[in-house]
């Protein structure tokens, strides 16, 4: 467990900022306590200070997880967001996509979202903008990348992919063993 280096921080923030933009600040500068990002076993954890202090007493080998795992830092220095970060992305998401109930399941099985399954989409979402995907009842389901901008979506074919699938809550079941 160690704090992130500047590069790592940059990586993480760049990725996060795709989804929540400047709202990252809300994660760092929280009114309810000190929170920080920590790297442990190539994974980035978002931890409150007191939990971190407690975790510090656990040896590196024994420490499985702490706080919220935001994602994984690959060896090629890329940051992959994890489904567990959804809790923190969803409330602050800048661009959202709502999926029709019919294609919810499809998405939750790991498929991209087609135009036909697109229920709603935030205006002005650009292409390749990170979006958080909700069900029509506003339950966050995961996040992905907009394959087309909002304008493009309007005129798109029903079978075209609108949002690339990145992470969905189905992974809690599918990738249970690799979540952490």
């Amino acid at each position, binding site marked *: 467990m160690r*704090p992130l280096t500047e590069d790592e921080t940059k990586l993480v923030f760049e990725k996060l900022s795709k989804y929540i933009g400047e*709202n990252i600040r809300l994660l760092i500068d929280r009114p309810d306590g000190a929170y920080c990002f920590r790297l442990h076993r190539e994974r980035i954890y978002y931890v409150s200070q007191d939990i971190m202090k407690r975790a510090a007493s656990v040896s590196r080998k024994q420490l499985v997880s702490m706080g919220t795992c935001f994602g994984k830092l690959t060896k090629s220095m890329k940051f992959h967001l994890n489904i567990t970060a959804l809790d923190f992305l969803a409330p602050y998401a800048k661009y959202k996509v709502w999926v029709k109930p019919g294609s919810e399941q499809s998405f939750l099985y790991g498929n991209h979202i087609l135009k036909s399954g697109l229920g709603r989409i935030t205006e002005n979402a650009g292409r390749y903008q990170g979006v958080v995907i909700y069900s029509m009842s506003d339950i966050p389901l995961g996040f992905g990348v907009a394959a087309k901008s909002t304008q493009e979506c309007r005129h798109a074919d029903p079978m075209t992919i609108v949002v690339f699938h990145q992470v969905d809550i189905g992974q809690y079941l599918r990738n249970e063993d690799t979540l952490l």
Partner: protein
Amino acid sequence: MPDETKVQLAQPVRKRLFIGGLHQDVTADDLQQRFGRFGSVTSVDVRTKRDSQGQIVNVFAHMDINISETNFKKCSSIYNDTKWKGHTMKVQVAKEDFLTKLANERKEAKENPEPIRTKTRKQTEQDAAKERLEENMTKAGVEDFLMKKAVPGTPIPGETNWIVGKFGRVLPIMHMQRKDKRSQMTHDPSKYVHYVRKFKDDAKTDQLITDRPVEDLTWQLPEEVSDIDRKRMGVFPEYAHKKKIKRENQGILFKNESSQKKQVLLWSQDGNQSSREKSKSSDGDFEIVRRNGNIDGRRTDLVQLKPYRAQIEANVKSNQSTQVESNQQGHRDVQDLLEQYNLDSDEDSCGSADTDEICNFAKKSSEPEIKEREILTNWAEDYYSKEKTAAMSGDTSEFDGFRKEESVTGRRTQSLNSSGVAEKNGRIESKPDDKTNSVLPSNDREANVPARGRIPVQIADDSDDTDSDGSEREFEEGVRVEENDEDIDENGDETDDEEYESNNDADVNEEHSDGDDEDDEEDDDDDEEDDDDENSEEDEIENSEAEDNLKETTTHSHVQYNAKDTRNLEDKFVSHQEKEHTVNSRTETTVEENVKKENNSDSYSSSEDEGDASDNDEQSSSSSSASDSDSSNSSDASDGKGTPRRTLSVDNVDSEARKTALASPGDQTKHRQSNQIRLESVKKRQASILTQKAAIQEALKSLDSKKGTLSARTHVRFDSDDESSEADGTPKNKTATSKMNVLKRPGLFDSDEEETMDLGAEANDEDRFKIKPHFQGKAGEKLLKLQDRIGTDSRFKLGETFMEDDSEDDDVGDEDHDLKAEKQKSLSVLESIVGRYAVHSLENKTTTNFRDPSRVRYDPTSKDHTQFEIADASVSTGTSTKKKDKSRVDASIPEVSKDIFYDVKDLEFSQDKDENKPFRFFAEEELESEDEDVEGLSTLQKDIQASTALGKRQLTLDSSDSESETEEAKHDGKDDMDVTDTSDTTGNNQPTSAYRAFFFQPDDIRLKTGAEQFCRKLSLEGMNQWFEEQKAGLQGEYKKRHQRALRDSKKAAQLSSGRKPRR
């Protein structure tokens, strides 16, 4: 500035460049050529790196070049990451060459030899210890003793289970066995003793320490406190009591005096009052000019008289004349006059003393006269000092007054002894015999009594108490005269210098205290002069005289109740000075001795003054206030205040008492009372003087440090002081000051605490030399030995590494700090990513907008959390309708079921009796109740089983016909029935036997028919007939089957046998 930087940039600097990614063919010359245009290349070093097979991995070069900054930039921009011969070249600044670096270092080291470290004392000590150790080692034959770094916890060589603790303490490792002896525990003390805490000098602890007042840090043990201690602490048990008495005394002067102290106080008060009176006079009230003139006249008389021995006589005459005058004065002035008379009588006493002296002088040799003179002067000076040092402590003034008065009395007595006395005082003339009696110092009371006796005679003229008071004084003084004289002589010689110093102090005090009074100031000035010039003896004498005069005048003024005019005062002063001059001229011969004596007396007073400075101050304050009040022109007020003082000072007679005495002249009861009181007081005084001395000494002990700042507030005084101050007419001031005293009292304890601390330290010192318990005994010896060997080793000194900071706090602080820094860092990163504005635009939102999703826990009970529930309308409605249906059903059923259930239950219950019992098949009771049917059934079953078994057997076993017949015969005709029955019963009975029984009713037909089935319907013959008919058929059948069976068996046998031979 920019120019400078430019110049700097243009300046070629020696640089070492790293040029990487070269082709293997590149040579140093190439490089030199290429880089030569940017600067002068001094050396190029091309290197090739090869792997284990000798293949060239890469080629690089180091180049020393003198290159300017700008050129270097240019160079790097041109060559860096460019391709040269197919390789990308890298140009970087390299680290300095190792060799050059080393050379530089050495050079530096040579140039700047190591700065001489100023060794701290600790270091030197350590070094010394090390040296000693090494020396010892060499002595012991150990060469090259290497001091290993020893840490607490290192085992001691050659000893098992001993380790070195911190501070080089030798500690044993303990092995403890558990009770069950299964495991052993080792306790290594070195692991537990390192915890040293360093107190951080943070604000909190500092505050804790600094904010706490010293009093809070100390505490008092509830020990038995001795009286002295208590007094030191400022607790005076009899304090309040005494006060009361004092006040009473104020009312009735000597009557209630219980202790000598009070007397002393009174005496001191006398001094105060005199000073006050002076101040009064100086303040200048304008009452009656005539009296002033009277006084003046008297004065002038005195002045006239003084010139020589005839002086005194003249003085006496003048007094007499004044008396006459007073007699002639109107009734309204009678009082004043009387008081004047009192004072006059005092004056007379003085004068008489003078006359006595003169007489003595005339009669005796010159020496005794001189002595008397001295005494006189002493007395005068004492009195003067008394007056002056109104501020002084009651004790000192007491003593002073005491002595002086005694001396006066002594004079008196002497004068009385001398026959010339009679001539001088008309009053005294009548009682020479009495006075001669009083001369004897041993007989205090007797002396007193005669004095008393005298008084009425004196009063005959004056009809006043004051005379009696004066006589009192005389008596008291008389008691002590001789002793005092001796003392004064002795002390005077010994302690001149000290006395002078003390005099100065006293004077200063007086000045402070009596700054208001012109007279006092003048006197003070005189005194100061005296102090300054020891040789100015004349001045002193003058002073003494002046004091006398002043006293007289002041007293006079008091008696007259007049506020004196300044003019009058001036007149007085003039007269005083004249007088003094005359006196001076007279007493030139006796100057030195006088001086000495004065000093002596002064020293007494001054020393005491120092001790009781606060008292003095109090008194002075009170006196000043009194003077102020006097200055206010209200004559009544001045009277009220002046009279008590007067009474205290002059004769210790209460003003009221005096007034009453005046009202009823010749009242002797009062005299008696006062007489008694005086006697008592005299006794007590002598006893208490000793104790007071002791007290003063104690008080002086603690005063050393506070000499410089003598103020009323800083000292704790004895009761007497407060009392005296209270005795003055200004209770408010007094109470205030006394309160202050009370408040300041704790100041005195400091020294005590210090003492106790010292004691503690001493005790510790003692402890230090005791053998510590753990070094006792044999084990202790060993420990001591080891300790000696190891303990002094400097290696084991606890270094800073063993200091533990306040771990948690520090950690927290550090962590916080780290976190903050981290936060800042991450924020800056965020800024770089998202943009500064975006980040800061959120600042205001953060608090309001924020909610932590991970902290949200669904609580079904709270209304807010309904948002987390999935709002599935259809499902919810469906379920709700279903629920409604169910609820409807549930609602209807209970109503219906109530009846139905009841009925059904009844039915069931009734049936249960009939039907359920059969269920419990094997319970005997029920079987009994089950009637025959069941029994029959059960038996039938058995029979059936038996028959089937038999039949099978019959079938399987080739039983003979006869046997079967016999069996059949045994069974008789039953068999058929059984079979049928069995066929019937088995068909019906077996699966549903229980249920069938359910349907039996009483008088069931089946039961009847069933019973018939068990009976033979045919007769025997008919049976036989039927048997015969059947017999043939059966036999034939049997034979057929039998033969068939035989055949089959034969065949089988043949088959088996046929196979056998084949094989």
